[in-house]
């Protein structure tokens, strides 16, 4: 009984020891125990709320489980414990153990509400991208720049994930987390996503950005993120609302570049897409 009761606590302690080893990206997944801090101010605030409520639960857990374990060890008939059958009610104690949780919850709700207000503050965004989920992939549409493309699961992984493909998923880098055309965004910029869907409900989530939002046909949802200036790189996520057969196979990849690199990419892509859309000579049109 005691060992079993302690097991979760030991596991929680194991989790806590990991906060100090953040950023270790080993090949094995054993180190993956906790939420990541992410690369935006919001994602870090969400992380600290998560840790706050986690530690609150740990402390309450230690107190409550200690009392239970103490009782189980001490008040045993086999040890000759005699029940105190008059102990059936105590108004004072009951008021105390109702009031303390109320205080804890209020203390928890205040920072949570603050972060929520911040998350919902969609003013002063600098770049708007329309995101459309479909079965099974994403379409990105840079509304102000006329750049638009589809983003789907990368081909090798798509072949490997077929039933009985015989391909070892471990041989494929970023298995199920890589796409043909990643979304490209600038760092240090408040990027607004307008999220919708073409068929069924999907959800757009990149854990490092701290937010997910449903993509709902007929609705345009709004969500924003602002990646730290120095956190350029590739960030990966997945569709998180069951959307049919290939729900597991519509990853999201965001390539965060410096503002200059982003502008260069945007111009080049806009130019290339204009070229591709322009009327072509007959010979190449056939090939296309």
């Amino acid at each position, binding site marked *: 009984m005691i060992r079993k009761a302690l097991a979760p606590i030991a596991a929680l302690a194991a989790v806590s020891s990991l906060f100090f080893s953040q950023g270790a990206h080993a090949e094995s997944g054993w180190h*993956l125990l906790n939420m990541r801090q992410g690369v935006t101010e919001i994602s870090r605030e969400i992380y600290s709320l998560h840790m706050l409520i986690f530690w*609150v639960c740990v402390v*309450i857990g230690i107190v409550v489980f200690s009392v239970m374990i103490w009782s189980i060890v001490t008040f045993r008939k086999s040890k000759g414990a005699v029940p*105190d059958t008059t102990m059936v009610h105590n108004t004072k104690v009951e008021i105390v153990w109702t009031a303390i949780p109320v205080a804890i919850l209020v203390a928890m709700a205040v920072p949570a509400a603050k972060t929520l*207000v911040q998350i*919902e503050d969609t003013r002063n965004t600098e770049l708007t991208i329309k995101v459309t989920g479909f079965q099974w992939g994403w379409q990105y549409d840079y509304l102000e720049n006329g750049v638009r493309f589809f983003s789907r699961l990368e081909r090798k992984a798509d072949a490997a994930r077929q039933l009985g493909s015989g391909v070892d998923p471990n041989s494929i880098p970023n298995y*199920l987390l890589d796409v043909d055309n990643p979304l490209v965004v600038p760092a240090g910029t408040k990027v607004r996503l307008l999220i919708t869907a073409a068929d069924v409900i999907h959800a757009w989530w990149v854990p490092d950005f701290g937010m997910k939002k449903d993509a709902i046909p007929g609705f345009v949802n709004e969500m924003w993120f602002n990646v730290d200036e120095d956190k350029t790189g590739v960030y990966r996520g997945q569709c*998180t609302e069951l959307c049919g*057969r290939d729900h597991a196979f519509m990853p999201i990849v965001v390539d965060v570049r410096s503002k200059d690199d982003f502008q260069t990419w945007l111009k080049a892509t806009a130019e290339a897409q204009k070229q591709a859309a322009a009327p072509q000579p007959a010979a190449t049109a056939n090939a296309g």
Partner: protein
Amino acid sequence: MAQHSPAAAHAHDDHHDHKPHGWRRWVFATNHKDIGTMYLVFAGLMFFIGGIMAMVIRLELFKPGMQFVDPMFFNSMTTMHALFMIFGAVMPAWTGLANWQIPLQIGAPDMALPRLNNFSFWILPFASAILLLTLLVPGGGPAGGWTLYPPLALQTADAFPMTIFAIHLMGASSILGSINVIVTIMNMRAPGLSLLRMPLFVWSWLITAYLLIAVMPVLAGAVTMLLTDHYFGTTFFTAAGGGDPVMYQHIFWFFGHPEVYILILPAFGVVSEVIPAFARKPIFGYEAMVYAIASIAFLSFIVWAHHMFTVGMPLAGQLFFMLSTMLIAIPTGVKVFNWSATMWKSSMTFEPPMLFALAFLFLFTIGGFSGLMLAVTPADFQYHDTYFVVAHFHYVLVPGAVFSILAAVYYWLPKWTGKMYDQKLAKVHFWLSAIFVNVLFFPQHFLGLAGMPRRIPDYATQFTDWNMISSLGAFGFGLSQLLFPYIIWKCVRSGAPAPARAWEGAHGLEWELPSPLPYHTWETPPSAAVIARGAEH
């Protein structure tokens, strides 16, 4: 145990028992004990069918890559696993326990509406059969998740109308069962057994029954609108026709949140019976326990949108549902503290029912903690639809609801059969279950926090290790459950006779009856003295 007048009266009644024989006894059953048994056997069967589906899920998730099933079949397994466990296993198990125990515990001869009782049971096998047969129709079983969110659910092929019909039938069965429970408790309590002297199991079921009657019609309405959207050209939930897919989610979860308390409130009742019995001490804060159950039931109606924080709600809505959800921690906390206080200065022994109840106490509390974490809206944006949520609700439903059903059966089985089961084997069953359930579900917290979405048949390779552990836990847990029917079978066939009061510290009117139980009990209501002895909570 020497029984006074009631026992003598029953010995006399025994003589006139008109116990029907053969198949008629079961098909035309009106006796609450027979119907309770049928409900429990049915629930056990569904538990194993739903369990096989869970094994398919964990087998495919054992390693990355698709090894065994098509993703569509995987999706129908997750969908059907939920429907079978909720509507086939846990709810009928509670109704079975209500059937057996409520009349015994309130001194009533039977349920108030015996033929309705028969009808509400016999609907269920047909409903489950229809649901199970969807696996054989073109397009396979329902694969849009048990929540049946449109527009995805509207893509279901031939299984669609069958699924909806099955849900209607199961809902009707639940409503009829609940009406029976309420009428029985309100009208058939023994004279002098006032509401606030009722056992907590009866209280928890009374409140559960009201929840069921309130929300089952809401589910029926929601799925009927899906049906007309699919076949009759309405567009309740289709944006192209001016409908609103998010409205479905609001309606569904207005049913769905009370529904999860329908699954857990009777568990609170069972644990409140078992812990005092084996602690040899009355429950601490009986009235607070009743009020806590009632407050949880009330709150369950105003927290539904916490299941859908990511749909894009206004800030005010998010704040409201965050705060109302946090409030649930208060009455739930009161319950956990009261159970702990019941154990304080007690004199405990650790028979199988007590072991399951104690595991409930620890592991349900862990499920409560993750629930509190999920209530924090900004953090929920990260947790939502990941394995963290899967871990959370399985902690409250498996070591929560399922363990307390096992505790209840192990507690009352000697009363029902008049025989004692193999306690040593039941303890083996307990330890295997308690260990494997943690191996199975604890790593899922890590998977969710690391970013693994739920309802996926294949995953990125960094999630492999914890998925393997979780799958091994699942196989262990599944296999250990096979002990349960064996223990019951062995008890019924060759258990040693159990005394009328099978457990030293057991109180309640059911323990004032002789063992084995006569076919008809409390034909004359218990006397004030018997009630006083039995109703010490």
